[in-house]
């Protein structure tokens, strides 16, 4: 099964690293396949940034998303640009304090998290992307938590690993309680594992 994910926001929010961690978890630690492509503006920070990630139990051919199963948006601009193209029954994750959600089909599962504020409370705003990854990990069963943690260890500098693990767990806890609160149906495309345990 193919799962299409897009991460989008501003340059500097760690969009690409977030997508990289999820892709690495799928491709290296879960025994699946992942294809990650990216697009960004000429600016190092502040411009639009977007990453497209496909994960599957089979080799991936077409390298771009066509209709996202999961959309993660960290800016209003990204929401406006990409929300209309996502799957009407997909999962939408938004940065609660940066994105106002409107005009969506009622069938989209929307979950929000104040990732930037949570990251600041942990001591460093830059880990907001890892908070988001933890949140995503709890809301979906595509990849095991262990695989995420392995990917995280393989992606961040050793000195910052502890902070990143705390950021992941923070997001993960928020995700679990959001799941319970919203009573996410069992039979949604996003809550089913894409492939079995490695």
């Amino acid at each position: 099964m193919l799962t299409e994910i897009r991460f989008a926001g501003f340059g500097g929010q760690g969009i690409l690293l977030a997508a990289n961690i999820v892709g690495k978890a799928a491709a290296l630690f879960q025994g699946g396949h992942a294809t990650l492509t990216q697009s960004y503006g000429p600016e190092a920070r502040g411009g639009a940034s977007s990453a497209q990630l496909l994960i599957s139990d089979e080799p991936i051919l077409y390298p771009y998303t066509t209709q996202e199963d999961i959309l993660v948006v960290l800016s209003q601009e990204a929401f406006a640009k990409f929300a209309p193209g996502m799957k009407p029954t997909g999962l939408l994750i938004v940065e609660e304090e940066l994105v106002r959600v409107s005009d969506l089909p009622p069938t989209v599962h929307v979950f929000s998290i104040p990732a930037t504020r949570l990251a600041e409370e942990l001591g460093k705003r830059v880990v907001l992307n890892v908070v988001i990854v933890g949140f995503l990990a709890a809301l979906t069963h595509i990849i095991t938590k262990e695989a995420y943690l392995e990917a995280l260890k393989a992606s961040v500098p050793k000195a910052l690993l502890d902070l990143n693990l705390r950021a992941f767990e923070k997001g993960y806890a928020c995700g679990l309680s959001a799941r319970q609160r919203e009573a996410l149906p069992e039979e949604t495309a996003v809550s089913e594992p894409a492939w079995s345990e490695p």
Partner: protein
Amino acid sequence: MPADPKAVLTGVHFLNGDVACCEGALAAGARFAAGYPITPSTEIVERFASRAPEVGGVFIQMEDELAASIALQGAVWGGAKSFTVTSGPGFSLMMEHVGYAAMTETPCVFVDVQRGGPSTGLPTLPAQGDMMQARWGSHGDYEVIALCPNSPQECFDLTIKCFNWAEDYRNPVVLLMDECVGHMTEKVVIPPAEQIDVTPRHLTDKRPGDYLPFKPCDNLVPEMAHAGDGYRFHITGVTHDERGYLAVTSQAQDKLVRRLCDKIRSAADQLTLVEEEGTEDADVVVVSYGITSRVAERAIRMARERGLKVGKLRLITIWPFPENRVRAVARRVKTLVVPELNLGQMVYEVERVAGGLARTVGVTHAGGGVHRPEDILAAIVEGAQ
């Protein structure tokens, strides 16, 4: 011989095509790169600049592409395996020195990560518009070897191939990547060093008095000697004889330039890498390369779901053009469909070879993205009729 273990990043990685290409170059023995960094190829030299000191290599950021593409050849004659990395606008500037490498039989690798052109075009977006430039960009008669990867894994594998063939044929070899493959991140498996076959430079064992630097062996390729090895030789872009001395006559020109072309042309079949599948009973075969081959594969599946008999022929070797394989397929199908991220380049090569045997239809795209699979499907459906 096996690769140098200290340069091989053995393991399973999640790398983009650019980084994988650099790791391939390091595994293949590249210890010098000169470049003038340009999007979307920058990550290759960025990686090389950070990795080179670990393996005793050198990266120089030159003042421009002309300087980069000739500095790399100086390094070759000084004994290093060398490459440069660029994209379309820089590749245009390097053309003079592609010809120089062909004429002086300097084994070297040019990596071109293609983006939309002409001119500055689309710096951050893919195209396949340099296919013919890679073949014909420099003046005069010469041949190049060019390979086209469609995944980060192949960026690693084929970069090694490029370096090995550069040595075997003493010729410039071009890796024709594109922005999509260069910036795409996937799983890349790097094998242990002892499983990577690296071709050493074919140095002469003749004594200085007996060695003629441009006297070909049986495979039409001369043996090399490095500057400072004690041999007297002269490297020039002027037409030269077997001693390397200027020989500005039509006879010397004929002898030299024919050999330069023949050493590649006569090896075309050994140099042919293709992926062929489902062509035996096909009505239509899609001939594609690079990132477009992955988009084409989806279109082929869609066509098969409709009951059409469709095969694929993916060109991994672009130059010398795999004529025999394309002709063999053309003999048994109605139509060859050639999607590419340009307004028609390799389609004319396919048409030249398939002429009179099968119909050839191009599916063009000016670059900046990849084809919609539906557009390739439409050409397949029409071609099957």
